[in-house]
């Protein structure tokens, strides 16, 4: 395989996170429109100056990114729709970066947003995919909780992970969320409370599960000199990876696509995992976080539990991780959940965190994971970012 071209001269800037809400009577269109409104204000540009748009959402109904251009009054010359759930952020970033690098667009807005009506979660679950409809939802309708319960159980059987290990991650993320004003979960969480929580789908209990909510996230991808001219602090994209349906022959998922591509990620970035100042993983269930530690190379396969036991994960800990509380505490705003870690990593690198800052963060890694189609998450991605 030939070496991949570096993303020279391309940056991401103007991270936008709208305050999440548990339920919203507004549509996904409203959330996406408002995120782009805030993005153009932050960047100091008129909406019509955006010549690229890449969008992710589960709740736009019949609308695609195309319909949204008319809805929002945009005339982009480059447009993409990324229906990849938790991998949306990383995938949008790498698509946009190439478009800008090759001159197909100059100012690409990356946006993800979803609404959450009182009944929309159940409806999303039952029609999530054909496989879900035919072969998952009729089996107890436990949603992602039940699917990840089986993955978690299998991982615990394989590598001796304990509920306490997963609990440590959840407790640390809650600690991180306490400084985020709009986090869904703002009460401090103790390990005892985690252990005693009500069962959702064994071995998962309440605090292993994310809270569905409404929200939107956005960012701008452009050339470094454009960001400078706009006066926007920015982050460079050192490397990215993306993979779908990796390891289809694993009977139960115990690794994600990162395990195939992590070598390439670090090689392209020219750094090693131990140089990373902050890691933002996709945390729909702590077992997937643990897999990301392993598969991205922060520890070896099967050593996730030991890695958790030997580190602290708060913003001021030995391994700052999901520093805005992640989806476990901030909430899962549909496809915007795939951007949560990305915008947080950007803010840490440009020194404008919403919550607690990480001391002198220069290098961040972000990973995404999404789309449980039948028995496992299919999409994985990761990016290494550096302060520009």
């Amino acid at each position: 395989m030939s070496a991949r071209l570096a993303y020279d001269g391309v940056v991401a800037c103007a991270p936008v996170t709208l305050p999440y809400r548990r339920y919203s009577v507004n549509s996904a269109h409203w959330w996406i429109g408002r995120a782009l409104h805030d993005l153009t204000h932050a960047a100091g540009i008129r909406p019509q100056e955006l010549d690229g748009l890449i969008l992710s959402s589960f709740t736009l109904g019949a609308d695609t990114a195309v319909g949204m251009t008319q809805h929002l009054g945009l005339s982009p010359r480059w447009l993409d729709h990324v229906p990849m759930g938790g991998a949306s952020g990383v995938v949008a970033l790498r698509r946009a970066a190439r478009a800008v690098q090759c001159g197909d667009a100059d100012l690409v807005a990356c946006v993800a947003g979803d609404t959450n009506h009182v009944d929309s979660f159940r409806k999303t679950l039952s029609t999530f995919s054909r496989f879900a409809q035919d072969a998952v939802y009729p089996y107890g309708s436990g949603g992602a909780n039940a699917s990840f319960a089986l993955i978690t159980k299998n991982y615990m059987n394989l590598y001796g992970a304990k509920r306490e290990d997963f609990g440590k991650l959840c407790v640390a993320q809650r600690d991180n969320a306490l400084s985020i004003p709009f986090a869904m979960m703002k009460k401090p969480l103790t390990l005892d409370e985690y252990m005693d929580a009500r069962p959702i789908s064994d071995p998962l209990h309440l605090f292993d599960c994310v809270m569905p909510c409404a929200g939107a996230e956005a960012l701008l991808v452009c050339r470094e000199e454009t960001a400078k001219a706009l006066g926007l602090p920015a982050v460079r994209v050192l490397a990215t990876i993306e993979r779908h349906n990796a390891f289809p022959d694993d009977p139960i998922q115990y690794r994600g696509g990162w395990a195939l591509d992590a070598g390439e990620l670090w090689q392209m970035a020219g750094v090693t995992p131990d140089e990373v100042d902050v890691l933002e993983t996709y945390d729909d269930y702590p077992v997937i976080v643990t897999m990301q530690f392993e598969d991205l190379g922060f520890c070896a396969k099967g050593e996730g539990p030991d890695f958790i036991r030997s580190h602290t994960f708060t913003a001021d800990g030995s391994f700052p991780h999901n520093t805005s509380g992640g989806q476990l505490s901030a909430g899962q705003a549909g496809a915007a959940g795939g951007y949560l870690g990305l915008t947080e990593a950007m803010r840490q690198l440009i020194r404008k965190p919403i919550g607690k800052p990480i001391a002198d963060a220069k290098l961040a890694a972000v990973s995404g994971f999404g789309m449980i189609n039948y028995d496992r998450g299919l999409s994985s991605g990761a990016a290494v970012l550096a302060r520009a």
Partner: protein
Amino acid sequence: MVKPLVKPKRKNPLKKTRQPLYPQAVRSRTAHGLTLAGAQGRFELQKCTECAHVFYPPRDACPKCLSPRVPFVPVDNRATLLAETSIHASTDPYFRERTPWRAGLSKLDCGPVVLSHLHEDVREGERVRLELKLDKGGAPVIIALPARDTEHMADDPQLREMTCDPKFRRVLITDGRTAVGQAMAKAFSDAGATLVFVGIADPWKPFPGQDALRAIPNVEIVPLDVTDTESVTEQAEQNGGRVDILVNTAEHVRSGGVMQRHGLTVAREEMDVRYFGLMRLAQAFGPGMRARGADGVNSATAFVNLLSVHALMNWPAYGAYSAAEAACLSAAQCLRAELRPGGVKVLNVFFGPIETEWFQTVPPPKVAPAALARSVVNALQRGLEDVFVGDIAEDVRARLAVNPKALERELGS
């Protein structure tokens, strides 16, 4: 181990009857390959014609070689349960009132990993058998059963949701004058039915076998004439709220085709007994059964039609009879859709000529009434929707699948 079912107490008439619910029943067109196999009690998955890869969930292309030739075929159902969970929180109203609900991932020896319901007697790491069933909504689902039968296995609450087991249920056999009706009463009594109502038109008229019928435990003779709307309605008013399984044994067999018969008297009679009889029963008992589909251990569960296999293809020697049976089959398909919201199954039992006086001149093989009755009970215990009983019925089914036009010519020669 499964705890044996306890015979339900008499229902408190002041208590609200639980409304029937059922799991999401929408399936892709391809996934209805599972519906077909499940309705007839076979375990079938897709197998690629080009590369022999077996896979699941249902797809429209082989995930190994992309071949579009991916028919459902019987496959080995032996598997190992890799991981299990108990779902305590469900978004679906049906499952919400049945939590905790167990589900798990099993790896079949033939390859695929299958998410399925779990029988109480299966454990993580153990060997299991996967079976296709139809759930309360009539949709195909897979359940992992223990590798070997266990005690009181059929009493498992999750499994019982997918079957129509007569145990502790109340049955109405609509005509007890026939040999089939009497065999049916015996079979249901043997299968643990709490009460077997047996309908007899004009009960003061004696009939052969009546003493033996009365001697069967749990049998209660009731007045019922399926050709009399008033009689059917009255019986439904009397006992309709206690009929969990209805087996229509009313029969009307006469030889002769369409052209050779003079007039319509016999044809009217056979339509009155069979087709209108079915409609009378459906109208009088159907709504009550549909409303009682989730009424505990002895919920309403099945409406059973006994149909000549010649409902599927006319047999000119018994041509008018075949036509009436075809009308019944069509009505049964309609009734199936009407009862489905209540979780009540319609079981169609197709049989060839029976060992009775009306098929006196027909050479063997013929179906013995007792064998037919056992097949009905077995089909209910397995939760099937279509069964074929006896060599003739199986033969017609097989020939129909290969070439219906050939079968039409063969039956007519």
